[in-house]
């Protein structure tokens, strides 16, 4: 590690330079060369069916889009499409066994994101946030552990923390690294507990100021409410306003050290601020004197509650199946969640095995992040994921770590339908190499996919119709047209 550069960045001069250059022009030598060249040159066999087949479907849903060669590689995993998809699911459910050295190498330079909690505070927050956004786009573009990354995004929305609030500007980096990522394919109760005790979450939803210290102090209900409504049981699942207030009482006293002094950012329990009386949550009596253990008693009541299973199953099915998922699939996934005691791998394996998963192909509208990253992946574009690229995500309202409220970016299509103009602009700019810091190499890409029919099939996950082929020819910019086409907006 280059110590000079490290201290340079840490003390903010780097960030000042970034800021002073307007839209974040970066001094030469500070940033990596571009990432994302194709690993192999091909030629690759594209999809051949007239409709999206199981392989293309699996790539659409378990990943942020197919890179050149992905289809051929996954197809070769089994004799039949069914076997190949099943094997791909198993591989993706065990990311620790997937060699991801190439992606890790590319991300090594985001060293600030690996700093211990206390040292994160030494960075300029704008710089830290920019690095987090870049790293997130790059990882989604490059990692071979695609499903894990898809689930990281899922939980980042589920446990959304907006870095623009107070110390979250530093603490979100810790939350992403220590809460979301380690548990993304782990067990839900552990993820929930990590989130409840995440300094970022304690800041974001005011848990750190939830206290009963003097007679008459009222607890701060913010986190308690979202814990029940968004993180676990789901709204209208039977809990009451009294339950919210009782949960808030249970969680009084947990806080984050925020003085500029020693161990800033550390989470601790302050018994003097805890309301230690008896409580009643969801019909369960919690005797007085529980102290810090009240938190675990509350989480135990909600983490594997049937309403939580239903709520999470609905959200997972919305992500992987359809905006309005079939109730049969939701029930099956909910059952798998309960049976496995919140094991997310078992739950997801079950989801991908449902007949409903196979049946709902090509019906999902990609969210803008998915659209942008799938474009980069499909074209094997090299990118620094710098400000020019991120600007498109801001324009479409889907930049990482930029959602203000705790419900996270919406999954369903409606709120994103207004983004077409910016999708088309992005398609045009990418195809013409008009995005600073991002570059695709058209001729090698074409060669790797044999001919225009192969190129089109690679982008659409199926053979092109004669209309689509004719349009590509007439447009004079087949790549731009494919990226902007309705078929590429779906997955």
């Amino acid at each position, binding site marked *: 590690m280059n110590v000079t550069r490290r201290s340079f960045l840490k003390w903010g001069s780097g960030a000042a330079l970034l800021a002073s250059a307007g839209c974040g022009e970066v001094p030469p030598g500070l940033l990596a060369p571009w990432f994302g060249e194709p690993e192999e040159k091909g030629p690759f066999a594209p999809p051949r069916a007239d409709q999206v087949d199981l392989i293309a479907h699996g790539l659409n849903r378990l990943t942020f889009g197919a890179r050149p060669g992905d289809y051929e590689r996954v197809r070769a995993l089994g004799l039949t499409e069914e076997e190949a998809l099943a094997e791909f699911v198993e591989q993706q459910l065990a990311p620790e066994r997937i060699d991801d050295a190439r992606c890790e190498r590319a991300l090594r330079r985001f060293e600030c994101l690996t700093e211990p909690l206390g040292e994160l505070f030494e960075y300029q927050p704008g710089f830290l946030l920019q690095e987090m956004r870049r790293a997130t786009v790059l990882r989604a573009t490059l990692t071979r552990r695609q499903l894990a990354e898809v689930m990281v995004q899922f939980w980042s929305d589920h446990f959304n923390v907006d870095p623009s609030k107070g110390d979250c500007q530093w603490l979100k980096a810790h939350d992403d690294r220590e809460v979301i990522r380690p548990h993304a394919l782990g067990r839900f109760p552990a993820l929930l507990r990590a989130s409840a005790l995440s300094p970022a979450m304690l800041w974001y939803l*005011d848990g750190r*100021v*939830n*206290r*009963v*210290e*003097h007679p008459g*102090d*009222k*607890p*701060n*209900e*913010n986190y308690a*409410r979202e814990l029940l*409504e*968004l993180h676990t049981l789901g*709204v*209208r699942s039977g809990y009451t*306003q009294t339950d*919210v*207030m009782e949960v808030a009482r249970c969680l009084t006293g947990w806080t984050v050290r925020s003085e500029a002094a020693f161990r800033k950012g550390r989470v601790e329990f302050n018994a003097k601020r805890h309301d230690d009386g008896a409580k009643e949550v969801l019909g369960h009596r919690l005797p007085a004197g529980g102290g810090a253990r009240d938190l675990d008693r509350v989480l135990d009541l909600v983490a594997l509650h049937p309403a939580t299973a239903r709520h999470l199953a609905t959200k997972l099915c919305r992500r992987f199946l359809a905006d309005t998922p079939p109730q049969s699939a939701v029930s099956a996934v909910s059952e798998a969640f309960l049976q496995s005691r919140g094991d997310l791998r078992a739950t997801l394996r079950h989801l991908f095995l449902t007949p409903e998963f196979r049946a709902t192909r090509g019906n999902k*509208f990609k969210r803008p992040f998915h659209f942008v990253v799938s474009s980069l992946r499909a074209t094997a574009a090299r990118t620094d994921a710098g400000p020019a690229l991120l600007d498109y995500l801001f*324009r*479409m*309202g889907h930049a990482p770590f930029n959602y*203000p*409220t705790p*419900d996270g970016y919406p999954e369903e*299509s*409606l*709120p*994103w*339908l*207004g*983004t*077409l*103009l910016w999708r*088309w*602009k992005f398609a*045009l700019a990418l195809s013409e190499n008009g995005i600073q810091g991002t570059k695709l190499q058209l001729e090698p890409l074409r060669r790797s996919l044999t001919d225009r029919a192969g190129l089109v099939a690679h982008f659409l996950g199926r053979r092109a119709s004669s*209309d*689509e082929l004719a*349009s*590509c020819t*007439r*447009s*004079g*910019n087949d790549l*731009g*047209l494919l990226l*902007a*086409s*309705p078929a590429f*907006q*779906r997955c």
Partner: protein
Amino acid sequence: MAHTQALLSGNGDQRQTLVVVFLRGGADGLSLVPPLEDADYPKLRPRLAVSPKAAVPLDGFFGLHPLLGPLLPAYREGALAVVHATGSEDNTRSHFEAQDFMEHGGLAAGGWLGRFLQHRTGPTRGALAAVAVGRELPECLRGAPSAAVLQSLEDFAMPGSESLLRELEPLYAAERDALGQSARDTLNALRRLEGLRRAPYTPAHGAQYANDAFAQGLMQTARLIKARVGLEAASIDLGGWDSHFTQGTLIEPLMTRLANGLAAFHRDLGREMERTTVVVMTEFGRRVYENASFGTDHGRGSVMFVMGGGVKGGRVLGPWPGLKGESLDGPGDLAVVTNYRNVLAPLLARHGAAHAMDRVFPGFAPTPLDLYG
């Protein structure tokens, strides 16, 4: 230019425009329009109450927060009405549920603004009939015959893409769902704005818009209204009102933005304000008593503002339920006395939906508030 103007305006020349401002996060009506003469107010808000000395007096009972002072001229000249103790019947005290309920206009599919646009007399269905200023389509516009999302007119252009767009059009025309409709709206809006975006914009009557996103959004709206592109509804959000913690520092800058933005818009539009109605709403108010962190938790009743469009302003409307224990709602919240739909119904009627109120607000029989005197 005359040709461009005609092309842009289409048949939308005499359209009235409804501008919906949503204060997301649950804005504290008791700070925006404090009940200065309610003896319980300073008792329940020992640290957060607006003092009568600082407040801008309105009608002898209510005042405006001093930071909302820029709204006083509109109030004095009768263009601005305040409605207090308003909200919806949703009592989940959840931002998402309450916003959802309010934007849907009850337990209905689609949004109330969308249904209004669909059912009003002689809908234009023009590419720019409905505009969401910002980055996404709000729920209230769901189901609108067409809706464009834009941050500024300059955004709405795609130079050098003629042949690409020509090929995209038939591909999207084959899409029979909302995606196809959205593509058609986008292509139409692109064409209609092509001329308009070249002309520079100078606000009228010396109006000065601040540089924040809210004021700039209002300026873009004024620009579209004056260009007569057939704009019938615009929605714009001002978020961040969720003041659980150190309420003042959170909402004071927002109040400044709200007041300056609306004041500039009012001034800029001048006589055009007659055919323009601005309504300001929020999903719920805050708890009456303060919490231990100088903030307030989710409550019920809050305040709405209605400006322009022939409203008989200079009044604070709606019965006041008071802040005594027995009149508070649930854990200690200002009661909702005037349902928000009773505020919207009369102004939607004025904007051409009088005959369709049962479709705009299904399952709700409005008792329209006397907005027009």
